[in-house]
């Protein structure tokens, strides 16, 4: 049983690492880019309008002064960012609707939503 478990764990681990090279989000330029600014525990803008049913890129900048964590359980994203950092997140096609996201390091003030239309 121990061996079986070993191989399950290892298989999963390999699967997760093997995907790095092959299936990383392609940086195609036809993807629309939407920008989000995280600043002092606030999200600017708090409501992001995005096109539904196509891939898009979210360019998140954390202006600081503190660290921020872009997170959405619904959209399955989690990104920790030090102050002064800009990172891109690629979102897969979304059904029209409203999706919540938040700054996990500032849950009291950093609540936003993405509206896919």
């Amino acid at each position, binding site marked *: 049983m121990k061996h079986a*478990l070993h191989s399950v764990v290892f298989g999963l*681990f390999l699967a997760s690492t093997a995907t790095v090279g092959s299936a990383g989000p392609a940086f195609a330029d036809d993807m629309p880019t939407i920008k989000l600014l995280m600043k002092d525990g606030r999200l600017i803008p708090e409501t992001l309008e995005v096109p539904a049913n196509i891939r898009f890129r979210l360019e998140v900048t954390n202006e600081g002064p*503190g660290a921020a964590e872009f997170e959405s*359980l*619904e959209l399955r994203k989690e990104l*920790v960012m030090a102050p002064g950092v800009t990172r891109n997140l690629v979102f897969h096609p979304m059904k029209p609707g409203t999706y919540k996201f938040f700054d996990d390091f500032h*849950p009291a003030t950093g609540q936003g939503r993405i509206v896919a239309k």
Partner: protein
Amino acid sequence: MGNALFVVWRESLEAFLIAGILYAWLKGNDDTCKGRRALFIGLAAGVGLALLLGWALLTVQDELSGNALEAFQIGTLLVAAGLITQMVLWMRKNGRHMKARLHADLSAAAEKSGFVGVAVVAALAVAREGAETVIFLYGMSQEGDYGALIGGALAGFAGAAATAWLAAKSLARLNIGLLLRLSSILLLVLASALLVMAVDRLIGSGWLPALVDPVWDSSRLIDDTTKGGKLLADFSGYRARPALSVLLAYLAYWSLVTLAYRRIARG
């Protein structure tokens, strides 16, 4: 300061809980101090790893290494879930016979590998959550707000330690059979939550299909985007809008674990 307290408490609670449960279990089952020593070595190594991982997360800027780091984090989630599960099964196997065996000085090798497992599980728990705490605290130090930083962080750590201590204390008060069963269940629930987190992030990165998304929406019952709901999600694997592949992984995990658990009981 209130925010720093809450974030640090939440980020370090899991590591403290795992350490507390292991400590209670080792105290009840292991007369020598070897197991507990292994636990503390693991925790210390975890702090070092957390600093290293935190530094890596801070310095990574570009897309490619961002993806590699994401894959690495998902990998550590899966390995942690697997190791905790394996350790629970090891505890199940050795719990009742360990004292007798230690006296007879038998199977020292099996015992040793079990303790290495304890140390690795503890180290991974600290490293994963600790890395985020490192970044959070680094950010606060950039804000120049040292009073709030030190006060909030210390209060958060102390709160998490007290929570875990309370859990370990109440566990230790139970009789051995109940202690073993309850600590096993707690650890398995934590492991399943890690698995759900890993599968969710695999879907979010586009490395795994969601199949049906979502299968249901129970956010009106328990909303996992609120503070309390998020805690429940982090520690039990609850999702208000689960994808089918997450659900399948969760069910597969519990059926495999139940099967293995039963088999050890019979054997």
